[in-house]
């Protein structure tokens, strides 16, 4: 984490806290709610996808479990906040199950397996109308006594701050170094004694918990949910794209990515109307083609290039014996 990223994040958070004082329309606040909601989700995804290198495309499963957990337990008469806690526990359980199977797979198989799990969750919710309401949907209770969008905005902002805090802590902790070691080379990480299955699962559990809270917030704002809306593959990809656009494996990335993607998506909806998905798809293609490291990732590299040279060599240490060999050659 470079200092400029931390400062920028600080500025964004301070501005965000005071923003509702200036903004009067509910519509703008709703867009901003979405920005911070997906910033939090992107940060949560980043812990598994960006730092650990396990590129999940099934986070809609935890999002949906959070949303449906809140709705269904509240329907049984449980206090909404207790229902939220139960929903998070359910998301942790499903993450443990999904992780234990999918973490054994690598590359595209991991991503495909996470999609398949999310689809299975969606189809189960869809096909059990007696329990979940099925395609008809289910009502979600309000988490806040006042129904204003402002409380939801602050809740999403708070979730983003918590997720950001976790990422910052992770980046500096032994845990975070373990995760990054797994991303760079899992076999090597295993061979130096890192319990890779345990740390991958731990990263996923944290990620799933935040995602479930996000799903519950989203559902509570809309008051009514159907499976195709909250457990959709589109949610999974949107979370991943937010993080990739901003920069996978950077703390600031998902916040920047969400700010750009969510406002752009909203603008596209208003300007291009029916063509907004076309523009959105084209944007995804352009990011993959031209910004594979994301905005913050690319910027960070550029700034690094023009910044002060580091005292320690950036490149990998020379092969053992290479130094002696060089000295021997120069002595001759």
């Amino acid at each position, binding site marked *: 984490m470079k200092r400029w990223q931390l400062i920028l994040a600080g500025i964004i958070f301070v501005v965000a806290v005071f923003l509702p004082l200036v903004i009067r329309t509910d519509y703008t606040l709703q867009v901003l709610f979405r920005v911070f909601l997906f910033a939090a989700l992107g940060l949560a995804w980043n812990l598994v996808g960006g730092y650990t290198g396990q*590129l999940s*495309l099934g986070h809609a499963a935890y999002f949906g479990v959070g949303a449906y957990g809140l709705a269904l337990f509240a329907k049984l008469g449980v206090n909404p906040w207790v229902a939220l806690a139960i929903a998070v526990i359910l998301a942790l359980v499903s993450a443990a199950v999904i992780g234990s*199977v999918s973490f*054994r*797979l690598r*590359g*595209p*198989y991991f*991503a*495909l*397996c996470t*999609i*398949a*799990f999310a*689809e*299975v969750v969606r*189809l*189960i919710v*869809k*096909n059990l109308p007696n329990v979940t309401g099925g395609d008809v949907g289910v009502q979600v209770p309000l988490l806040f006594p006042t129904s204003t969008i402002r409380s939801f905005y602050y809740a999403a902002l708070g979730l983003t701050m918590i997720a950001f805090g976790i990422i910052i802590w992770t980046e500096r902790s032994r845990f975070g170094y373990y995760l990054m070691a797994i991303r760079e080379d899992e076999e090597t990480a295993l061979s130096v004694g890192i319990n890779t299955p345990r740390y991958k699962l731990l990263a996923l559990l944290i990620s799933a918990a935040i995602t479930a809270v996000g799903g519950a917030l989203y559902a509570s704002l809309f008051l009514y949910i159907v499976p195709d809306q909250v457990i959709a593959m589109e949610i999974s*990809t949107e979370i*991943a*794209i937010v993080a*990739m656009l901003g920069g996978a494996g950077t703390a600031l990335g998902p916040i920047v990515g969400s700010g750009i993607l969510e406002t752009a998506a909203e603008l596209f909806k208003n300007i291009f109307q*029916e*063509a*907004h*998905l*076309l523009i*959105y*798809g*084209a*944007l*995804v*293609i352009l*990011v*993959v*083609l031209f910004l*594979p490291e994301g905005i913050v990732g690319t910027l960070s590299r550029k700034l690094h290039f023009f910044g002060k040279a580091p005292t320690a060599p950036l490149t990998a240490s020379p092969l053992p014996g290479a130094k002696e060999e060089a000295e021997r050659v120069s002595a001759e």
Partner: protein
Amino acid sequence: MNFYALLQAVLNGILTGALYGLIAMGMALIFGVMRIVNFTHGAFLMLGMYVTYVLFQAAGMNPYVGFIGAGLFLFLFGWLTYAGLLRPIRGQADFMVILLTMGLSLVLIDAVQLIFGADYHQINIALLSKNVRLGPQISLNAPWLVSFALALLLAFALYFFVMHTMFGRAARAIAQNRYSAPLMGINVNRVQGVTFGIGAAAAGIAGGLLLPVFYLFPEVGNQFRLKSFVMVVLGGMGSIQGAALAGLVLGVVESLTSLYWGNEWALAVDFAIFILVLSLKPNGIFGSQRV
């Protein structure tokens, strides 16, 4: 549940399964030779349906001829997709390829929706109302039967092409080792471009053959996005004969699931099988020979 209902379900499953097999062979070819997880495969199928539909509406061309046009169009489209979008990012993580093909899929579906609208269409040909009766209890829908026969024929043609021509041999060489294939004088870019085109054409042709028996709408291909990969995994990564067989198996499994548990569980069973195969036998069930 009597015996005839079971037999009918199995036969219907086999008819669907041949078309699934053709779709899966295209996907297996693309995945086997290039390691590309193609999330545009469903959109390719949808394009094939629309091309056949346009040929039928504008030129009065029977869909059982029109599918050839769909195949040619998708071959070109696939080749261009590979050359313009996928070749530049070769060597990047698989995940980026998945994102890119997902983005392309969105673009294609929305473009078709802008041009043709979101309405459902169905074509009307004389064959649709005909049934072939096999005994007192069993009857097979004639257009399904024709689609089945053509899909089977094309699947065998594709198999022959990959296994017994110089081009197929070059493609299989790249699948075996993409670094030594160019050392043997194989033009990797050209072979991969053509392979992607053929894979897309297989999806397009399957779309053309599905047109007489399916509703047509822009998102019709979405159900095949993940399903075609389920078949590729089931058949053994990149094995085209395995994928074809997996298509038949999946067709029958879906048909039986619909019979006993209801139509809505068919897709869930597909994905459950997918997860089970990935976690228990990642090399697939049929054969281990790669494309």
